[in-house]
Structures are given as C-alpha cells and as structure tokens.
C-alpha cells in the first residue's frame, strides 16, 4: 500500500522517539510495574496524545491513520506505553470530542488533548463486560445533580485519570436505552479508584476499579443526551478498535523485528539461523500476516477519516491483528529458544502484552459477531 509521504515522515518521527526514548524504558516499565509518567509527558510534548483532534481543541489536527501509525510505532517497543496512548486518545478524548457540547470541549477536551490531563473510559463493570448494555451503575436525577452508584472494573488508567467518561443507567431493567454517558473529574466526592489489577502483561499500564457511592455530579456533566449513552460508547469502541488493532500490530512488528535481528546474529552448527528453512518459513508467515493486518487497520482508519461506515472494517482489523499478533509473539519465542523465555529478550513480554489485544475493547468473539452481522446485513 503506497501511503502519502507525510505518513512516512510522521512514522519516522515517532519511530525515532520510540527507539530513542521508549525502548530503553520498556523493560523497567514492565518489570517494576512502573507507569511511564515521563513518556506521557514526552508524548504530550510531541503532540501525540490527540492526533486526530482539530487544533482548536488542542489536538494536532491530523487524522485517524496518523494516530494508528503512532500507536503502532510506540507499541512496537512498549505495549504498556502503547495502551496508555490508545486509551487516552480513543477512550478519554474521543467521547468528549464526538458527543460533548462546546462548554465540555473547552473544559475537558482541550486539557486532555494537550496532555495536561489524563483521560479514561469507565464502561466495563464486574458483571458487564461483553454485555456492555448490562450496565448496573445507576444515575438518578435529583434536582441539578445526578446521584451515581456503582462500580467499574478493568478501567485503563482508571485510578490516575483526571477526567473519566463513564456510563450509567437510570434503570437497569431498561437495557441499552436507559444508559447515559457522563463526565467526572478525579477527586469528586463519592468517587474513588478501587483496586489496581495485577496483570499478566501491560504491567506498566494501570488498570483499576472505579467506585461511585452516592456520588453527586452536576447535570451539565451529562455527555450527549439522556439515554444516548449506548450510542456514544459504541461509536467510541468502533474507533478504539482501530487503535487496539494498531497496538496489536505494533507488538507483532516488534516481535518480527527482534526475531529478524536474532536470526541474523546467531549461528547454530556453524550456520546462521536465518539460512534454516524452518526459520524462513516462520519469518515468512509472520511478515505476511503482519502486512495483512496492517492493510486492514489502515483501511478502517481511512474509512473513518473519510466519514464512511467503518464498524465492520474496524472489527476485522482488531480481530485479525490480535489473532496474528498472538501467533507472531509465540513464534518469536520459538525463534529465540529458551533465551526467549528469559528477561534478556523482550519476546516473553510481547507474548504477555499481546494477549490483552484479543480481550480489551471488545473480545475477538464480540468482533466476530459484529463482523458477521455486518456481512449478513443483520
């Protein structure tokens, strides 16, 4: 696929940042479970945190394809930093951009776009994951305020986010039509972060519970119209899928690059590894699948940029990239042999990080249902 030169230039810029600044930190971020505050600051200075948001709202005024490339390049060296970027941009920034009124955009979108505040998305609950419409967190109108009660779980950046967009229902029995979206700020009385998860991978990314106990938020914090929350979050997730697909792709590319270097450097029985047929076979499969994933992601991004329907393509992109990404990481460990299981090489971390890509922002099973429904027109 021939991309416009501006995308290649942009990619080179982000790759440079990733290789110079992120790569050296990646091991520590994972092994010490360290949230990369320093890298968040640097990404903000580079204007990476809201690439597709217009400049008047603090963004870079570029497009979704540019954003996908950024996530891919960061993810290539550090999954934790990559998922922070994807969650902040797609899940924190986007809902306010797409559904916020002017006042909300001024108050919330601009600081998030500029990187002055961290954004997060409180959708998932302990008993409502794939079944997102099964929201049990309630928001009851009381004069000028909503009173919110409930809990969210598995929220990326939950406990450190300054601005959180979350969903709550006026009545759980109403299903999706009862759900609204709201904005809340950290430190609001009645709102607190809960436990932080101890995870398989992406250990530098903070994943936490959010707890609402008779939390009063002003009416003006309603995002979009009452009862439209479901639509807001579905649209958010559609876009989010492109970024998670890009992250899955980035990790897979990282696995390929590290493996390629290894097979060129190492010999066995006097023969460089890359001359072995089984190595060549694996590298070929990895590279081809990665290329196919890339094309699916870029296609979804371009459709979105052209304001055309993209749900199906975004679902395909995420489903496929995460699937082949898993295989790429597994193969990368095989290529490194036992060394691949040690902390000497990043490939075991890639395998741990990549697994979440099949789960978060809609499991692969959910993606398949979306795709099938789209394909069948049902």
């Amino acid at each position, binding site marked *: 696929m021939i991309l416009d030169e501006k995308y290649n230039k942009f990619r080179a810029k982000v790759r440079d940042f990733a290789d110079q600044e992120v790569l050296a930190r990646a091991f520590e971020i994972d092994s010490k479970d360290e949230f990369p505050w320093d890298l968040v600051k640097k990404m903000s200075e580079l204007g990476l945190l809201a690439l597709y948001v217009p400049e008047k709202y603090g963004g870079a005024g570029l497009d979704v394809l540019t954003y996908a490339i950024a996530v891919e390049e960061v993810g290539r060296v550090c999954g934790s930093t990559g998922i922070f970027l994807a969650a902040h941009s797609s899940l924190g920034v986007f809902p306010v951009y797409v559904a916020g009124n002017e006042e909300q955009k001024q108050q919330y979108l601009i600081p998030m776009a500029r990187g002055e505040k961290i954004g997060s998305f409180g959708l998932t609950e302990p008993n409502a994951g794939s079944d997102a419409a099964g929201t049990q967190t309630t928001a009851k109108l009381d004069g000028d305020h909503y009173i919110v009660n409930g809990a969210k779980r598995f929220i990326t950046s939950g406990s450190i986010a300054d601005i959180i967009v979350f969903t709550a229902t006026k009545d759980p029995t109403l299903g999706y039509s009862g759900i609204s979206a709201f904005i809340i700020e950290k430190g609001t009385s009645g709102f607190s972060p809960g436990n932080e998860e101890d995870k398989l991978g992406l250990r530098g990314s903070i994943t936490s519970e959010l707890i609402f106990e008779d939390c009063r938020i002003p009416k003006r914090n309603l995002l979009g119209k009452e009862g439209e929350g479901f639509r807001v979050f579905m649209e958010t997730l559609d876009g989010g899928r492109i970024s998670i697909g890009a992250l899955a792709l980035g990790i897979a590319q990282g696995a390929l690059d590290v493996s390629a270097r290894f097979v060129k450097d190492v010999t066995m029985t006097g023969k460089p590894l890359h001359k072995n047929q089984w190595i060549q076979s694996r590298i070929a499969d990895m590279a081809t699948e990665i290329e196919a994933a890339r094309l699916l992601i870029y296609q979804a991004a371009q459709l979105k940029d052209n304001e055309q329907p993209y749900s199906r393509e975004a679902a395909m992109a995420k489903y496929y990239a995460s699937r082949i990404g898993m295989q790429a990481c597994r193969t990368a460990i095989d290529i490194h042999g036992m060394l691949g*299981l040690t902390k000497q090489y990043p490939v075991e971390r890639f395998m741990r990080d990549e697994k979440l890509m099949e789960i978060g922002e809609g499991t692969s099973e959910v993606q398949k249902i979306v795709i099938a429904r789209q394909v069948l027109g049902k």
Partner: protein
Amino acid sequence: MNFDLTNDQKMLQDQVRKFALAELAPVAAEIDKSGDFPWKNLKKMAELGLLGIIVPEEYGGAGFDFVSLAIAVEEISRVCASTGVIVAVNNTLASYPIMTFGNEEQKKKYLPLLASGEKIGAFGITEPNAGSDVAGIESTARLEGDHYILNGCKRFITNGGEAGIFVVFAYTNKDLKHKGISAFIVERDWPGFSLGKHEDLMGIRATANCELIFEDVKVPKENLLGNECDGFKICMNTLDASRIDIGAQAVGIAQGALDETVKYSKERKAFSQPICEFQMVQNMFAEMASKIQAARMLVYYAAFLKDKGIKRVSKEAAMAKYYASDITVEVTRMAVQIHGGYGYTKDYPVERMYRDAKILELYEGTSEVQKLVIARDLTK
C-alpha cells in the same frame, strides 16, 4: 487393544489427584510469584513415592511403569506445572539414566537418594552455546589418575539450583565428534562446582532453573555413567523417555486450564445466561477437549511402548511431546480468552497456566527437534 488403566494405575491417579488438589493447588500461585523451589510439596510427594515412581522398589522407588509416571505427572501438572516438571525431571532425567546405564554401585548409591527426595536430581546437557545442537557442547572431562577433571558450564538446568545429584555430559574425546561425549554422575558439594545465574523465566518459575559451573571438578572414575563415549547415546535414550512425561506435563497443564475454564463458564453470566451456553464458547471447549484427549493418547501410547520394552520409542515420544506442547499453548490461550478480563489478572490461575505452557515447546528438545526426529524416522 485395551484402553483401560489397570487398577493400580487408577488408584494412583485417584490418589495423586486428591493430593494435588488438597496440597499443591493452594500454594501454586504463591510459588509462581516467589519463584521459591517447593521443598514442602516435594517432601509430601516423597512420602507418597512420587519422586521415584519408576525407580525399582529394590532401590527405594515405587517400581511403577511409564504409564503410571505419565498419569502422576499429568495430575500434578493440572494444578502446578512447576511441581510437575520437578517430579518429571527427578524421575526421567536423573533416575532413569542411572537405572538404565548405571552399574550396581551407582544404582545403590544414588537411586535411593533420588527416590526418597533426600536429593533432587538434574540433567546437565544444555550449555550457553549449545541447545538443540547437543554435539556442540564444550564441557570437557579429562582422565587424570583416579578422577576425571570436569570443566564447563551448563545453562537452563531445571532443578539446577537445588539439585544434589547431576547427570552431566562432557567431551572425553573431541576427535570423535558427538561420539566423544561421556556421561557422569556429579554431586553438588564437590569442590569446583558452583551455581551461576538463576533464570527469571516467564513461566514454571519455581523450578530453580539455573546455570551450573564446573571448574576443575574432580569426578571419581567410579562416577562415569556407562562407558566412555556412551554419553550421546545415553542422552538421546534418556530424552526419548523424558519426552513422554513432558508430554504428560503438557496434557496436565491443558487439562487444568480446561477444568478451570469450564467451572468459570458455568458461573459467569453475560446477556443473562451462563457463558458456557454460547456457541462460540462451546466451539472452543470442544476443540480444547478433543486436542487434550488426542495428546493424552499419544503420551499413553509412547509410555505403553516403553513399558512393553520396545527399544526405540523416539518417534512416538517425539510425537507425544510435540503435539501435546503445541495444543497446550493453544488451549491455555483459549482458557484466558474465555475468562475475559478476569483471565488476564492474577486473581485466576489461567494466566499462570498460559505462561507455564510456552516452555513445553522448547525444553527437552524444541518442537523443531521433535519434528526432525519424526521426519527422519519416516524417511529412513
């Protein structure tokens, strides 16, 4: 063709299963986190005779067969893959070569120690520069009077950090290429032996995976295992046997992951129904269960042939190990998947099983080596 387990095998399976659930499962997460070698587990298993399942009774073992070993290793590995491989290595990589190639004095001296768990055993073949390429090892042992002087370094040795008895491979004659390798029984407390790096691995974290360093270690002549230059043959024969129980370890990990996931899927609801009722989940379960059973049958078949006294089970053992490890990586991935976000956290055991599974495709001969063994057997 009789697929039934014998009464003894059924009793063993039942006994080990109960023991594993009661004693091993509750500490599996803890030892994974700390990386501490599970001596408490091993002492309890020694009492049950599990550390020397295949060691003949006259040397203090339980005198069981390879099918029994496979059953026991599977049951242990269902709840704790680290403990499973420690038991497997103690039986087939340490005890088995001594049982098979040792002389009477060696058997009397070392087998009771291994079977009782007084000492744990390990197998020193892999080196920093020689993994799949066994003939590429660089360790040497030169005869000087009554001793062999052993020099070299081994890496990625399961049980290495805690073992008291090592079966070590080194060149006694470099001119003969791989035929110049000899095998020795080496004890931990001999001068010149030290431990190197303790590996920080993605999975099976409680197995004391360590480097072994030998600097002019004086190995008594009596500790030569078999004859000089028998080393390669001993190594290959031993690996053929041990691949059976690594296959069993894989089956165990996969079965454990499936059991946990089935349990979870009945409790977890989405869209007002237990997720086990969704077709996509049912599809995955069917695949997982069928692959595990196929792997189990391959393992049992290789074990059965070994017990029958078939001299070379290389192809069957390679098939068992290759296939079982391959499906286990896939099954544990699906197990995490079905658990959703919860499966990605340490609140549930499946993420540990996912991390544990990967090494099965690599140690004791990578899947590529297994495939080579199979292909060569087919095309000989």
